[in-house]
């Protein structure tokens, strides 16, 4: 290890130097307002500690990478101990930073061992990939939990709110999965269709008094026609251009909603949107003239939770419809054409598949589900404004799909729970949540580009008997 040690130290030193250069201005000087103008104070102690942690972290990582397990473990444990110890570091963040660096080193060291164990466990004695079997049962299990959950005592207001939120993202993720995962079209403006659905319901219900259930299909159709309208001219474009154009469309729709005050009430948004009803019964303490409340209809006492539970089942049903639809359409010719296009557009053209029309259907179907989700969102929030439909929403939905593994349905659920649920539970993390989001997207692309649950197998095979895993990487 003698001469190598010098190499490791040099590498770690360089990494620390780059980190110091990156953070010197942005972290080292913290600007803040003092009434008139700005001033700053120094945070060089924090910066120094972080850089030292990076030095040792990098050292540990390179030791682990070359198989020097014990030094790496000791280093990782030492970092972790400093992070967790009562030694007073200048900020809580630094405790976390140093501790997580230690954890990372330890994980990196034991990774090869764990991986070997996993690889051994991956195939059951009968040769069936365990991952697929687990995924199948996991899906059924999750569904059962989701159906029963509101009836358990767990279902307080906070949990139900969160569950509705997660399910909304699951549905959006499934919808976007049709476009990104199946058809391989990177859509960065997905939130635009969500907005179209939300505004369709908000306007039709507040202006024309239409009910949620009659607007729902209309909102889906509305969003789908926007998808067709926007998709038609742009779907001839190459993958990355398409991504940017969809982003442009998303922003155009948001800016129009923001500025066309006569239609959308501008930045002030639309308020007092009626919630969904069950056979005409409203979910409120008192019913408006000529209708009854759900509590009256059922003859049970009113509780605020009833509305949430009702909303929960609506979004669960909508999400399941999306999932079911996707599972079925993958096996139809059009679904198979989507997947074929994703893999190789030129070959598809040669086989007589019209790429534009095929992509257009994927685009429109994806948009339709976003429209459904949007009108649900408007009915749930009872207030919408363009603020809710920024690019970052599109990025979050995309992150869910990417993290879950493009094309994997169960992956989307796991990713939505991970990305939406965890940060909501750990409210303190709020400010760091988006940083972690961005970091996760990069790390997934670098280390596991096929997502948490890699599922890039074709839905339909010519020869079902042969189980040769084809690892194709081409997406666009």
């Amino acid at each position, binding site marked *: 290890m003698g001469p190598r040690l010098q190499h490791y130290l040099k590498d770690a030193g360089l990494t620390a130097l*780059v980190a110091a*250069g*990156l953070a010197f*201005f*942005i*972290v080292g*000087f*913290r*600007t*803040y*307002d003092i009434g008139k*103008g*700005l*001033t*700053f104070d120094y945070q060089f102690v924090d910066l120094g500690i972080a850089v030292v942690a990076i030095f040792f972290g990098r050292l540990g990582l390179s030791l682990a990478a070359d198989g020097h397990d014990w030094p790496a473990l000791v280093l990782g444990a030492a970092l972790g101990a400093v992070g967790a110890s009562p030694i007073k570091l200048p900020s809580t963040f630094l405790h976390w930073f140093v501790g997580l660096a230690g954890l990372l080193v330890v994980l990196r060291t034991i990774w090869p061992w764990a991986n070997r164990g996993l690889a051994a466990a991956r195939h059951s004695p009968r040769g069936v990939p365990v991952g697929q079997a687990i995924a199948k049962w996991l899906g059924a299990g999750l569904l059962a939990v989701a159906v029963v959950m509101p009836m358990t005592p767990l279902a307080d207001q906070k949990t139900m709110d969160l569950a509705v939120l997660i399910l909304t993202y699951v549905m959006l993720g499934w919808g976007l999965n049709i476009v990104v995962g199946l058809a*391989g079209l*990177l859509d*960065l403006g997905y939130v635009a269709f969500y907005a179209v659905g939300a505004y369709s319901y908000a306007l039709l219900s507040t202006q024309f008094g239409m009910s949620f259930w009659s607007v729902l299909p209309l909102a889906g159709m509305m969003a789908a026609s926007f998808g067709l309208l926007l998709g038609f*001219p*742009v779907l*001839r*474009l*190459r*993958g*990355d*251009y398409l*991504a*940017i*154009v969809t982003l*442009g*469309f998303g*922003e*155009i729709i948001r*800016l*129009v909603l*923001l*500025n066309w005050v006569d239609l959308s009430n501008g930045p002030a948004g639309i308020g007092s949107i009626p919630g969904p009803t069950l056979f005409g019964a409203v979910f409120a303490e008192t019913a408006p003239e000529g209708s009854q409340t759900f509590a009256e209809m059922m003859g049970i006492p009113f509780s605020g939770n009833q509305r949430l539970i009702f909303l929960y089942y609506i979004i669960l049903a909508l999400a399941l419809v999306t999932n079911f639809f996707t599972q079925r359409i993958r096996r139809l010719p059009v679904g198979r054409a989507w997947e074929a296009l994703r893999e190789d557009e*030129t070959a598809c053209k040669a086989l007589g598949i019209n790429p534009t029309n095929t992509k257009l259907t994927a685009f429109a179907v994806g948009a339709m589900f976003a429209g459904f989700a949007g009108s649900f969102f408007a009915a749930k929030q009872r207030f919408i404004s363009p603020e809710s439909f920024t*690019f970052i929403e599109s*990025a979050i939905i*995309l*992150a869910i799909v*990417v993290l879950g593994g493009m094309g994997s349905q169960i992956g989307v659920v796991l990713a939505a729970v991970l990305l939406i649920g965890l940060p909501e539970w750990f409210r303190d993390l709020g*400010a*760091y949540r*988006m*940083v972690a*989001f*961005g*970091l*996760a*997207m*990069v790390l997934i*692309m*670098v280390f596991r*580009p096929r997502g948490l649950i890699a599922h890039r197998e074709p839905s339909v095979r010519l020869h079902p008997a042969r189980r040769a895993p084809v690892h194709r*990487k*081409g*997406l*666009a």
Partner: protein
Amino acid sequence: MAYFTQQLINAITLGAIYGLIAIGYTMVYGIIGMINFAHGEVFMIGAFISLIGFMICAMLGIGSGAVAIILVLLVAMTFTAIYGWAIERTAYRPLRGSFKLAPLISAIGVSILLQNYVQLAQGARPKPGGHVVEGGFNLFSADGFDVRVTWLQIVIVVVTVVLMAGFSWLIAATPLGRQQRACEQDMKMASLLGVNVDRTISLTFVMGAALAAVAGAMFLMYYGIIDFFIGFLAGIKAFTAAVLGGIGSLPGAMLGGLLIGLIEVFWAGYFSSEYKDVAVFAILVLVLIFRPTGLLGKPEIEKV
């Protein structure tokens, strides 16, 4: 007429800033064929480093315009270049050879990461600063309207012209520029002929980031206020500029920047300032649909 001239002057200033950012997009696209979505954020970081740089200059008593600007530009270019290098090294290089959309998704991740990192480190409130060049002169008066050129506008345009000239020379006449053009044409062949492809790509990112830092400093001085979110819009506009001019083409990026500046300023001046961003996005969409190669770009031949 006076109003028109004034708008024209403003538009050229703004166009210069967009052009500088657009070069970063166009070079990266030219060489590795990816949209560096995080480039707008690099520009934002350049603006923040400039802001802090100006404050340090003021603290050290370097109040004089020219010295402060040159110092800040050098510092901002250096430190922002580190960002360019680090982003390429960590988020893009491992993805070479992965599926085609992977770098773009990774770039979106970097963009979110940097935005929120700056928000955490520096706070979400808009930061005023960079008032180092004051004053100007009246060009002429007509219709009771003074056409005013500020010294700052002259500084911005002069710095941009100098940088672009230097940069064109770098690409056209130095070994580094030759290597870049070689990588752009055929990366594998270039590496067979002894060009260090990784190093060339890294340097491309470094140069793009340095130019973005200059644009950030200009933006700060011109508007006098920045926040952690400026990179998103400016990035998309500069990307539009690069696409409009023909992505991959350096003169195209400058031309595109100028045109986007003109469109934005005149749209705001004659139609409505609320829809000026919509106009730019619409241009982006229209150009990509009807002329994806842009004004000065070469048509791309699809190889199977």
